[in-house]
C-alpha cells in the first residue's frame, strides 16, 4: 500500500501453546499477517487475547509452536547469537509495562550505550557517543545532561517510555513493535508518546506495529487494523473498513467500549517539556 515498498514482515499460521497437559493455553492460534514497509499496523484485542504473545513471537523472544515467519521476503533464521543480533538490529520493541522494562541495577547511560554499541560497534569516541545520546534524548524532548548517571526507576512512567523511544531512535530499526506503550501511563503523557511514535514513522521511516486494546487509538494511528480474539485474527483490513463498517460482533463490542471514536485526537494536549 505504501507505494510498492513490499513485504517487510510476514507470518503464516503462527501458533503458540503455553504449557502442556491440563494447563495448556492456546495463546496464539494460526495467525497469518503481512506487514509492509513504513506502514503503521494496529493489532487490537481485549485483555488475554494473545497480543503480547504474538509480539514476542514476531520479535523472536519465544519460539512458535507452529508456523513460519518471513523477514524481508526470506524465511527468518535466528538460530545463532550472531543471526539474532542481526535480526534485532532490524526489529525492536517497546513493552507494555515501563516499570518492569528496565534492569534496576543499570543506569540510563548504560541503556543508551548498549544501543550505540549494538548498532555502530565499540570504536566510537566518547564525545561522539555523548553527542548521539543527547540527540536521542532531544528527539523525545528530554535533556541528556539531566538523565546521565540516573537510574531509569527515578523517572516517571511516561519518561521511561520516552527513554524507550530514544533507544529505538538510536537503533533505527526497520520495524518497531509497540505493545500497549501507553496503557500504564496518564492521558497527558499518552498523547506525547503517540506523537513521538508517529514522528519516528514519518522521519525515520520506521514500520510500526501498534498493539492496543483501545480501538479508538488504532483508528487514529494506523492504516491497517487486525482484530484479535482468543488468539485468532477475526477481522482485518484498512482502518476505515474495519472500524466504520465492522462485520464481527466482537469488533462492534470493542468499538462500543470507546465513546468518541470519530473524534480527531486533540494534539494540543501534547506536552513538549522535560517535566
Amino acid at each position: 500500500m505504501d507505494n510498492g515498498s513490499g513485504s517487510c514482515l510476514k507470518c503464516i499460521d503462527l501458533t503458540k501453546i503455553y504449557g502442556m497437559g491440563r494447563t495448556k493455553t492456546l495463546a496464539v492460534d494460526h495467525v497469518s499477517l503481512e506487514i509492509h514497509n513504513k506502514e503503521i499496523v494496529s493489532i487490537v484485542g481485549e485483555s488475554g487475547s494473545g497480543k503480547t504473545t504474538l509480539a514476542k513471537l514476531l520479535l523472536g523472544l519465544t519460539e512458535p509452536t507452529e508456523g513460519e515467519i518471513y523477514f524481508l521476503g526470506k524465511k527468518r533464521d535466528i538460530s545463532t547469537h550472531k543471526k539474532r543480533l542481526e535480526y534485532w538490529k532490524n526489529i525492536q520493541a517497546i513493552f507494555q509495562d515501563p516499570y518492569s522494562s528496565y534492569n534496576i541495577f543499570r543506569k540510563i547511560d548504560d541503556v543508551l550505550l548498549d544501543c550505540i554499541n549494538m548498532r555502530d560497534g565499540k570504536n566510537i569516541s566518547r564525545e561522539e557517543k555523548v553527542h548521539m545520546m543527547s540527540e536521542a534524548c532531544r528527539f523525545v524532548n528530554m535533556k541528556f545532561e539531566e538523565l546521565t548517571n540516573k537510574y531509569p526507576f527515578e523517572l516517571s512512567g511516561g519518561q521511561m517510555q520516552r527513554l524507550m523511544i530514544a533507544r529505538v531512535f538510536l537503533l533505527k530499526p526497520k520495524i518497531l513493535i509497540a505493545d500497549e506503550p501507553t496503557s500504564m501511563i496518564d492521558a497527558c503523557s499518552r498523547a506525547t508518546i503517540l506523537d513521538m511514535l508517529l514522528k519516528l514513522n514519518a522521519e525515520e521511516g520506521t514500520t510500526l506495529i501498534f498493539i492496543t486494546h483501545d480501538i479508538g487509538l488504532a483508528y487514529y494511528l494506523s492504516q491497517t487494523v487486525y482484530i484479535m480474539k482468543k488468539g485468532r485474527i477475526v477481522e482485518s483490513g484498512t482502518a476505515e473498513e474495519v472500524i466504520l463498517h465492522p462485520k464481527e460482533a466482537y469488533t462492534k463490542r470493542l468499538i462500543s467500549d470507546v465513546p468518541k471514536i470519530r473524534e480527531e485526537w486533540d494534539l494540543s494536549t501534547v506536552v513538549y517539556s522535560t517535566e
Partner: protein
Amino acid sequence: MKHTLRQVFHSGKFVAGFCILVALLLLIAIYPLFVKGDPLAIIGQGTFFPPGTYVNTYDSIYAPNTYTLNLKDAAANRIAQRLPEKDREEMKTWLVAYGIPEEQIDVNDIKALLDIWFENYDPNESLGMIYAKQRYYQRLNDSIRNLLSIEGVILAEKNPETGELQEVGIVNQTDYVNINEVANVRVLPLGTDNFGRDVLTELVRATAVSLEIGLVAGVIATLIGLTLGLLAGYIGGWVDDFIMFITNLFTVIPSFVLLILISFSIGQEKRGAVTIAIVIGLTSWVWTTRAVRSQVMSLRNRDHVNLSKLSGHSIFYIITHDIFPYIASYVVMALILQISSAILAEASLSILGLGPRTTDVPTLGLMMNWAMIYQAHIMGRWWAYLPVIIMIALITFSMNLMNTGLDQVFNPTLRE
C-alpha cells in the same frame, strides 16, 4: 546498593545477629594475643580439672614474703572444706554399722564426731562393706587426721650427703602468701578436658576452625548451587533436565547419609578440617540449586531480560547482569544459612567420630565428641561440653538472626 546496606543495618534482628557474630570474631582475634601457646597443648596430668585458679604449691612455700593474718573463720572454713557434710554423714553410717547407738552421734558437732571416730575407727574392720567403700573410709581417715590440730606443718629438706631430713621451716595455719608474689599461677576459667587441655583456649581455637569450615563449605555449596541453579533456570531445556536429574538424585539420598559415607571412606588419617569442609560443601548444594533455579525461572521471562536480549547481549552477560543482581540478596541469605548448617554438620559428623583428625585441630564437634566419649555429661563435668553447646548455639543463632533480618529487608511482605 548503598541504600540497601543502610536498610540492612536498620533491621534490629540483623544488627543483633551481626553484633553477636562480631563479638565472637573479636574473641577469636584477641584471645590468642593474651593467651599464647598451642591450643592443643596437654597441660593437665589427668582428666577434667574443674574450672578455677591453679596456684603452684611449691612456689607458694617459697614465696618471697609470708604474711600472718588472723582471720576468725579460717578454721571453720578449713574444716568445712576438708570435711563436708556428705563425708560426716558417711562417718555416721560407719559408726552406726560398727555398733555405736545412733543418738550419740551428732554430725553437726564436728569435735564430738571426730572424738568418737578416732576412738572407734579401725581400718582393718570391713563390716561387710565392699572394697571400694573400705578404701573410701581409709582415705577419709587419713585426710582428717590433723583436722583439729592447731600446729603448723614442718618443712624439711633432704641432706644430699647423709640423706637425713633437716628442718628448714614451718608453715603455720595463719600463714598467707600474696597470690601476686607466687611465680606460677594459671587460671583455667573452664578447667581442662579429658586430655588435660585448657578448655577455654581450645574452645576459642575450635570456634575459629568451625567458622572456617562453615565458610569454606558454605561458599562451595553456594557456588555450586548458584551456578547449577542459574544454568538450569535460565537455559532450561535438556540442561535443566540434566541438572534436575542430578539434583533429584541428591535429594533422594539424604545429604547427611552421603556425608557419613564419604567421610567414612576417606579414612581417619586423611580427614583434615579442609577435607571435611569440602565434603560438606559438596553434599549440601541441593537446596540452593532448587531455590536459585525457581527464582531464575520467574525472572527469565521478565521484560528487562527481553530488553537486554534486544540490546544484543549474550547469554553470559544476561545471566551475570540481568539475573544475578536480582537474586544476589537471596544468595547472600542462602550463604548465611549454608554456613550455619555446615557448622552443625561438622559437629554432627564429629560426634559420630567421622570428623577431622583430632591431633591437628580442635573443632566444636570434636570437643563434643571427646566430652561424650569420656562421659563428661554423666560425671557432671559440665565445663567440657556446656560451653561448646553454647558456642554452637550462639553461632547458628546469630546467623539465623541475620538471615531473618535480611529477609525482612529484601522481602517487603515480611515486614511488620
